[in-house]
């Protein structure tokens, strides 16, 4: 069976994003733990590097998608009355979209330090 109704797409995306998010977080945690203490210039130079910014943009997209699929699974499992389920799903979607817009704004702000 093909198409969006089988749930196969969501299942696969949940795992693909998991792999990327997991790898990104591992690198970030190791970098933080071995950085030898907080330092504004080091952190900002590292975080605004174009490749890191690109990786972070991908992380943001993957994070929101991963959260959406996960939350949808949880909501569909526990919230049964249709109207309430729809309302909660809509609230979660709106929340994630707002976070996405905010995240893109943060990344543009970070990229503007290149100039």
């Amino acid at each position: 069976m093909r198409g969006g109704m089988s749930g196969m797409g969501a299942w696969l995306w949940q795992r693909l994003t998991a792999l990327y998010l997991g790898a990104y977080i591992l690198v970030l945690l190791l970098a933080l733990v071995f950085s030898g203490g907080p330092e504004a210039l080091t952190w900002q130079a590292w975080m605004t590097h174009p490749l890191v910014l690109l990786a972070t943009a991908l992380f943001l997209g993957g994070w929101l998608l991963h959260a959406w699929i996960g939350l949808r699974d949880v909501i569909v499992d526990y919230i049964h009355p249709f109207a309430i389920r729809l309302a909660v799903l809509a609230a979660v979607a709106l929340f994630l979209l707002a976070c996405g817009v905010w995240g893109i704004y943060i990344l543009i702000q970070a990229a503007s330090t290149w100039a």
Partner: protein
Amino acid sequence: MRREGRPVFLNLFQIRLPIPGVVSIIHRITGVLLFLAIPLFLYIFQRSLQGQAGYADALAILSHPLVMLITLVLVWSLLHHWLAGIRYLLLDVDVGIERMAARRSAWVVLFLAPVLTLIVLGVLWL
């Protein structure tokens, strides 16, 4: 789905969940916690990139006692979610699906998440 007359027993305090089930429900709870914390992550990340002052501000927020408590819960949530997630990815490709192996790996996740939390926060806080 539910057939008429079938008994339903959902008293969560009396159901004795096997250890893999405990890991599974915690995976869900930590997932929801990490979802709720997205704005907090975004805000501190944004501040940390806004010059020396923003960075100092981000550090000040992170050293507030209440935020430190939230950080403790979120770092544990992240590590549990990460470890349990790897366990599920391995189960997906048929690694460790034997009952005893699955129980062992569930215990490893439960035990390792708080231990790694203490190590990570020990390094970052001390």
